[in-house]
């Protein structure tokens, strides 16, 4: 079939996209607020999407040939565009209302332990509920709880926080040869689990942490070490025989606290320079926690509205110290070295070197 371009209008902005493109992708080409949020859909994972319903949009005109509107709101990640289609996302009060309802449903069983959760600050559910949710919950019942599970020795599963997006299951299915975890049980009892707590031994299984939109799957080597907004993300690469070796380091000073894959503006793993999706292997993610293992390319670009960009002063010009010039080269007298007084960030305790969370015993 020859390349046929469909004209689709989303929130009164018209784009031309090839046939077979989903509404979500067409909206992402426009970008900005027009793109519906997506919790379960992940463009790099085949078969994902259609579960969370946050990307619901209203189709006010089906196509040029059949201009009737679609009767119900449709999931934009699974609906392909038609020629002349007119879609309403943020311009439709129906969609905004439905989305607020979806957020409320997603948060029904979510524990809201953001102060404890390591994902806070880069959590899609947090962003979604801030932007589209209501201020308070109407839910009065006990929330569903699960015990914490270790998936292997480096990944922690907090099933309580899970929103059942299935992204991690698709990741394990598509990136690794043998998937060992999936969804057990149904409905309210459904949970991500490795049957009989089977360990996940696979070089690429660490990527489930990156695809998880909430804090259900977290890196145990980073657990409770620092908040993401106090670490500085830098792009770095290394020669790796397993993966592309292009990663993002979350650093504080010279300490590498966490290694993740690089993410694009939709929170999905970026394409590496070799054209493939930039998944990184477990060796890069969990074992290379020293600055000397990596070649640093420079600071990552962070959206200025993200909390992670706090304290990042772009284009900062430090004033030159005038005192040594005036005092003929003498340095000003330091009245107090903060490290001699402060108990925090001790030079002899390197928390980033631990591959487990810090305990009270580490501070003795």
């Amino acid at each position: 079939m020859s390349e046929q371009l469909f004209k689709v209008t989303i929130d009164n902005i018209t784009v031309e996209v090839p046939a077979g493109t989903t509404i979500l992708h067409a909206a992402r080409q426009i970008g900005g607020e027009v793109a519906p949020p997506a919790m379960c859909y992940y463009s790099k994972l085949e078969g994902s999407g259609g579960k969370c319903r946050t990307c619901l949009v209203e189709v006010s005109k089906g196509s040029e040939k059949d201009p009737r509107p679609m009767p119900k709101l449709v999931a934009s990640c699974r609906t392909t565009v038609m020629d002349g289609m007119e879609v309403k996302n943020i311009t439709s009060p129906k969609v905004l209302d439905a989305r607020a309802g979806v957020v409320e449903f997603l948060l029904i069983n979510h524990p809201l332990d953001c102060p404890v959760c390591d994902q806070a600050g880069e959590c899609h559910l947090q962003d979604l509920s801030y932007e589209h949710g209501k201020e308070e919950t109407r839910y009065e019942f006990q929330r569903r709880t699960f015990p914490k599970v270790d998936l292997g020795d480096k990944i922690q599963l907090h099933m309580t926080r899970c929103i059942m997006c299935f992204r991690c299951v698709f990741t394990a299915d598509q990136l690794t040869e043998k998937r060992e975890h999936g969804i057990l049980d149904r409905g309210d009892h459904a949970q991500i689990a490795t049957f009989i707590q089977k360990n996940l031994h696979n070089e690429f299984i660490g990527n489930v942490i990156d695809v998880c939109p909430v804090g259900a799957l977290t890196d145990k080597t980073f657990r409770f070490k620092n908040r993401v907004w106090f670490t500085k993300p830098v792009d770095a690469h290394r020669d790796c025989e397993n993966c592309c070796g292009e990663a993002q380091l979350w650093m504080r000073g010279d300490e590498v606290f966490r290694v993740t894959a690089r993410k694009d503006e939709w929170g999905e793993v970026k394409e590496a320079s070799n054209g493939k999706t930039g998944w990184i292997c477990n060796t890069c993610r969990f074992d290379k926690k020293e600055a000397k293992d990596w070649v640093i390319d420079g600071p990552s670009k962070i959206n200025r509205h993200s909390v992670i960009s706090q304290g990042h002063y772009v284009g900062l010009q430090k004033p030159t110290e005038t005192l040594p010039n005036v005092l003929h080269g003498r340095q000003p007298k330091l009245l107090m070295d903060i490290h001699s007084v402060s108990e925090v960030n001790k030079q002899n305790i390197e928390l980033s070197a631990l591959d487990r969370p810090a305990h009270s015993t580490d501070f003795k």
Partner: protein
Amino acid sequence: MEALTSRAKAVDRKPMTFLERLYLWNILKGMIITFSHIFKKKPTIQYPEVKRPFSPVFRGLHVLNRDEEGRERCTACGLCAVACPAEAITMEAAERLPGEENLYREEKYAAKYEINMLRCIFCGLCEEACPKDAIYLSETFAPANFNRKGFVYGKDNLLIPNPTTQPEATAKAKGLN
């Protein structure tokens, strides 16, 4: 030009009368005002013995709170530190070990928590940011010190006494007695 206020008084440039030129009369008028203050209520207070009550919104030295069971409320979420405009707060978090449930309320807690009172501007934003009701600004001043060292307050300075083991000290810290 229209006057800005109705109470403006034009400068009187009339020549002085005989009584005014006597000068003594005006001195006497001033002295009456001065001595009348002897019989009025004194606005000063004798500070160390008498203290003025703090305003209910006074923002003084920080306190790290405990819950009713004496467990530390702080979970080291870092929101106080990110809210702090003076960047005075630093902390290091740790995971609660089994057996430490009576010490810390949540599975994560602040192993180290420091406020540099030299940097702090007592704006109270940390108190507003805290999602766990853990940090409060009390009605006390930071005591004076000859060294800068004494102004870096760690958890031993900030934590409120445990209400289960030291009820009197807690009540005193809360200003209840």
